[in-house]
């Protein structure tokens, strides 16, 4: 089902916007709690918060979720079922699992069995050849599709480039997919909704233009 989903990448309590997945090359956006509140007040379809430095700060997660009355998915630093349990306790609807999908299948199975498939999003960051650590993302999705209700698939080299979503690629999946990286404009995101795609928006959610020199504070849901 189509949704436009702001993807908020963070470092500690600060929301940042990296370029092409380079953690050393990012723009500072602001306090992550405030940003979540803004998107919640504007009734975003859903919000995804990802700590790209893989640090798990449970107190911060608790403060973040208090400010969202739309669904919130959290990812970053989740290394075990216990981690996931502590996160769900703090008011998160879904967890996004990236590291575990590459390193520990068993923990994913445990989380999925206890919390239900609907609570699990599996996240893959793909390169130009659609590979993750050298493996085809399609193969990986096939392996995990019984344990997750949705896959967040990010095309790394397209992040913050406004180059357009790789629609052809995302249409190949027959599972729920959140197409991430490369959205060029809000118009493009809205058009993708008509094709029944769920779209992650990063730069487009925050910047008025491609030069990224003005912050968009009137993010509107186009419904």
């Amino acid at each position: 089902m189509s949704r436009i989903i702001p993807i908020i990448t963070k470092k500690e309590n600060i929301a940042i916007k990296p370029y092409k997945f380079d953690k050393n090359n990012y723009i500072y956006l602001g306090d992550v709690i405030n940003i979540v509140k803004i998107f919640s007040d504007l009734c975003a379809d859903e919000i995804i918060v990802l700590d790209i430095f893989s640090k798990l700060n449970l107190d911060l997660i608790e403060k973040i979720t208090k400010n969202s009355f739309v669904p919130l998915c959290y990812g970053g630093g989740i290394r075990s079922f216990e981690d996931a349990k502590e996160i769900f306790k703090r008011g998160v609807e879904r967890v996004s699992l990236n590291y575990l999908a590459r390193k520990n299948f068993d923990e994913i199975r445990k989380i999925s069995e206890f919390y239900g498939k609907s609570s699990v999003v599996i996240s893959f960051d793909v390169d130009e050849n659609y590979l993750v650590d050298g493996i085809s993302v399609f193969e990986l999705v096939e392996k995990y599709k019984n344990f997750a209700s949705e896959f967040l698939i990010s095309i790394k080299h397209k992040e913050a480039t406004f180059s357009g979503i790789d629609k052809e690629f995302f249409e190949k999946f027959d599972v729920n997919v959140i197409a991430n990286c490369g959205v060029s404009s809000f118009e493009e995101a809205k058009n993708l909704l008509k094709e029944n795609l769920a779209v992650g928006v990063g730069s487009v959610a925050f910047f008025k233009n491609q030069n990224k020199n003005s912050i968009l504070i009137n993010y509107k849901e186009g419904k």
Partner: protein
Amino acid sequence: MIVLPFGNFKSVFNILDFLGYKAKISLDIKNSNFVIIPGVGSFDSIAKEIIELKEILKEKKVLGICLGMHLMCESSEEGKLKGLGFFDIKVKKLPFKKTKIGWQKVEDEKYYFLHSFYVPINKYTTKIVYYNDFKISAEIRKDNFIGVQFHPEKSGKWGMKYLKKIIDE
């Protein structure tokens, strides 16, 4: 008002708190008049705990959300254990390959849905939601029991409106 400590109980508590209601997260429901069973989880993992509360729970006003609603039924295709049986219906698996995730219109409102199991239309159905031509119960009611398939605690201003209505009824 009590929110049972299952599923996304914190989200439910947060919205009640935001709306100005006094709520507690607890299993001690003896002295409460309104209990909410949150969703998010799997049928069997919560059924085995909630069944202990059945006798006291059935005397209270209860709102079950998503899985919480399913737990108030006889059983679910999602699990092997029995539900509370407050509604004599069985929860079934949605006939779609993909989990339903997203916003749907219900009458003049819209709510967030996240599920792959559902309550078929039955005599207790009071609101319906359509997935194209396939219709299912969005809300079921019987005496002091209410079940909703959607997540009012995550449906923004529409969800807040719904919760206020149910609580103030």
